[in-house]
């Protein structure tokens, strides 16, 4: 019996220790990210908390330990049981969250997706970081400039199943059809699964399989920095150019040593702020998520809800930001 009491005591004390009560006036907004322990997601969380603070809402930040859709479903179920008023989510899968989010909507919970969208049926509105077409275009333009509009390029993506990655890659291919890129050849697309060792190996493999490779686009944070490291280690700085989407904190080193002259990203803090702000406005009925509605989002200014390509509605954050040697040091400590 003694051992049982010990166990119970241990369990109880642990649970008490980790419980953080989130009772406040106003609405409760739950933010579900792809996984916790990811700086990009944490930055979005900071923005979300800021917006909730301004609106007088309380904020819950949650994410599974690993980026799986099953983990996100479990969290959403828990949020439904906690009777939150809104959920902001960056989805690990475009389709697979729809059923559980429909259940949430059925419980009168407003759903805002951001960063990585869920299908229209599972959301009220999507906060889009940037136009997918623009993201694709910018990266192709950047790499073309770097290599002088001539030579072989490759793409190092994250998972083969990630929707946003694939959409961007489609737009890159689209952009490359433009006659001004006719001397550029996209030789392959490889996948690093957002694992550092695997991305690094894939990059190294690219150098060996394609000795004439001139440039790499890596539209994923882990892939971009692992490739930069690989270029540096292989002694190819200046010979193989690199651009893509990445975090300034991770890329500072590689911008300075020239492995990556420039890359892009939007501000995740702003993204989280806007998503959380939109969620607040949906809760108090200011907006309903219909096309054409206009609203003002605190420090971010005015926005209009537009129709999204996937058939739902979305709010567009703005064009992605270009980081290079001139501005990287301002940002590297922020996110």
């Amino acid at each position, binding site marked *: 019996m003694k*051992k049982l009491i010990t166990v119970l005591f241990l369990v109880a004390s642990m649970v008490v220790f980790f419980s953080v009560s989130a009772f406040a006036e106003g609405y409760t907004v739950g933010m579900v990210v792809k996984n*916790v322990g990811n700086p990009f997601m944490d930055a979005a969380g900071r923005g979300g908390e800021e917006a909730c603070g301004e609106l007088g809402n309380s904020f819950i930040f*949650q994410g599974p330990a690993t980026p799986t859709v099953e983990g996100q479903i479990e969290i959403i179920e828990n949020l439904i049981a906690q009777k939150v008023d809104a959920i902001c989510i960056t989805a690990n*899968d475009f*389709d*697979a969250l729809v*059923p559980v989010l429909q259940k949430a909507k059925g419980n009168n919970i407003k759903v805002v997706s951001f960063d990585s969208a869920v299908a229209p049926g599972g959301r009220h509105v999507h906060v889009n970081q940037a136009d997918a077409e623009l993201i694709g275009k910018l990266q192709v333009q950047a790499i073309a400039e770097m290599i002088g509009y001539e030579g072989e390029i490759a793409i190092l993506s994250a998972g083969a199943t990630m929707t946003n990655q694939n959409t961007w890659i489609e737009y890159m291919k689209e952009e490359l059809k433009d006659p001004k890129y006719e001397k550029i050849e996209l030789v392959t697309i490889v996948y690093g699964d957002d694992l550092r060792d695997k991305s690094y190996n894939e990059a190294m493999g690219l150098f060996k399989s394609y000795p004439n490779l001139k440039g790499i686009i890596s539209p994923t944070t882990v892939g971009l920095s692992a490739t930069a490291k690989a270029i540096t280690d292989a002694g190819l700085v200046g010979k193989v150019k690199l651009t893509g989407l990445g975090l300034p904190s991770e890329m500072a080193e590689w911008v300075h040593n020239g492995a990556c002259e420039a890359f892009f990203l939007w501000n995740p803090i702003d993204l989280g702020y806007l998503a959380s702000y939109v969620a607040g406005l949906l809760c108090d009925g200011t907006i309903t998520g219909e096309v054409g509605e206009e609203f003002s989002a605190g420090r971010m200014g005015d926005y209009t809800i537009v129709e999204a390509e996937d058939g739902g509605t979305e709010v567009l954050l703005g064009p992605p930001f270009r980081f290079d040697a001139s501005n990287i040091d301002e940002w590297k400590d922020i996110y």
Partner: protein
Amino acid sequence: MKYRNSLSNRKLNIVFKWEWLLVILIIGISIVNGRLSPHFWSYTGIMDSLAVFLEKGFMVLSMTLVLIIGDIDISVASIVALSSVLMAMSYKLGLPMAVAILVALATGAGCGYLNGLLISLVPGLSAIIVTLAGSSIYRGIAYILLGDQAIGGFPSWYSYLAWGYVGKTNIPFVMVVFVGCAIIYGLLLHRTAWGRKVYAMGINPVAARFSGVPIAQMKQIIFTLNGLMAGIAAIFLTSKLGSSRPNIATGYELEVIAIAVLGGVSPSGGKGGIVGVCLALILMRLLRYGMGLVNVPGQVMMVIIGIVLVGVVMLPNIFSSRGGKRRTKEIQ
């Protein structure tokens, strides 16, 4: 249970007590959860939270058998993925959904059969190696087939499987199916001659062979069953997700094994029962649910689950006397 009595002995007594330990832990955790979160004591909340976990439950049931015969299967999560992908593809190819569901079951059973075939056909090839390779191969095939695509758009009735409730009650449909499966497995393991042979195999495989227990055939059946249950899990998981992808159910295998062990099943074979693993399933779920309600971050949750797992498994070892162990040896 009458059979328990005929199994009465010191070691199995521990198992019996083990189940009571789990019951007490479940009550304790419920009380703590209730105090911490005002949302915990909600009938729908608890029901739904249990339901969300049940596709793993299906896998735990058959994994219990695999562990009792002293083997292990780490390919189940991959079998779930492959079954789901094949089911979705055959639906997309124009087969009726009901047939597609059969495809999932057949795929699961087929993969399990293949595991069992290799293990029983090639002596010296251990289950851990076969299923380790299998876990890459099966998911790999799912990737080859579907690549970066996802398949969705199933008929609307299909989502009822994971999301629907029985009639006007608040009982999730999946729970009814699970309870049915659990009863079948409980009867199979504890009330049939076949179940007796399963334990015999786990306790002493050589003696079992000499006693006329068809070892190879039993292994074949058990691994096939394990694959079949993964197929069932795939049907419910796909229904829950509304779509299929090659990367679903990642990491399920370790969780399933952990729940079975928490339920009193010994990975070295011969011990454990269905009641225990069902209780462990509830315990694990309530623990996670409670922590989820107070928004413990996922990574911290892993620490706590790890501590509970190792703590609960270690408890009887710490308190059981050394002499007792030696005595069994001595008498031999």
